[in-house]
């Protein structure tokens, strides 16, 4: 059940860093030859381009690897992944509900790139990391998925047990002037 009191281990927001509310999440894996079939069944076109995302009516599909995508559903429901599973019946793919494995933070505002740069070696400039780009990467010693949802908006997914660690480092970076 999505009980908002236990959904996030994160603290309340600060100006540039706010927890993202409950999200349903699934990992889909399939071969390149099955991408079209799987996309049709789940009603969102899985991106083939590396490190790119697609958004379609509340669903987001983030490329994590050539055969792996993270699907986010902004309208969380415990039944969603089992519904996807039923629709994928017969398709050769793997579907795993990871809704509660990870939590999300929003890093936003004019200093978002600088805050992220304190723990992640990627070039976060808009030219190198455009809106819609997503990737699994590292923030300090924790694995994260970083997704740019706007010019000054990043969505950061982190495994639940690493969330407070990443959050604390981000807040420390935010506090520095």
């Amino acid at each position, binding site marked *: 059940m999505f009980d908002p009191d236990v959904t996030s281990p994160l603290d309340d927001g600060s100006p540039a860093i706010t927890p993202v509310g409950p999200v349903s999440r699934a990992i889909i894996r399939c071969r390149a030859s099955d991408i079209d079939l799987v996309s049709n069944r789940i009603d969102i076109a899985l991106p083939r381009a*590396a*490190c790119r995302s697609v958004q379609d009516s509340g669903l987001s599909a983030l490329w*994590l*690897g*050539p055969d*792996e995508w993270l699907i986010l559903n902004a309208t969380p429901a415990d039944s969603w992944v089992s519904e996807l599973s039923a629709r994928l019946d017969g398709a050769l793919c793997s579907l795993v509900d990871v809704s509660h494995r990870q939590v999300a933070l929003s890093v936003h505002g004019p200093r978002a790139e600088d805050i992220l740069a304190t723990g992640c*070696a*990627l070039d976060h400039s808009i030219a190198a990391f455009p809106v819609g780009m997503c*990737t*699994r*990467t*590292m923030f300090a010693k924790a*694995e994260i998925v970083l997704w740019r949802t706007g010019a000054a908006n990043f969505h950061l997914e982190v495994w639940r047990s690493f969330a407070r660690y990443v959050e604390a480092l981000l807040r420390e970076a935010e506090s520095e002037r």
Partner: protein
Amino acid sequence: MLLLECPYCGPRAEIEFRYGGESHIRRPGPHAEVSDAQWADYLYNRKNLKGEHRERWLHAAGCRRWFNVARNTVTHQVLAVYKMTEPCPLPDDTGAPVGDPSMTPGTAMGGAA
């Protein structure tokens, strides 16, 4: 720190990768015809080159693909990066492609680079 260019994701910091040891090592077979010496050679013996090396890397904190890197172990210069199914693009290279990437290990082997 190395900056490695993943064939799928582009240049990334070394912290995102795991080293997988020497590349282009074929499993001998069929198994019943493999001598103990051949098997031991396959399991344990590596060139441990000082110079131009062909090695496997896993983009563990990225796309989770294995790929090959041709790297000079003295200078750390990366000479080429190529997919598991591709031969080394360097001229005069004799290493054969490893083959089906699904047959490569799912976990990193060996120690640090």
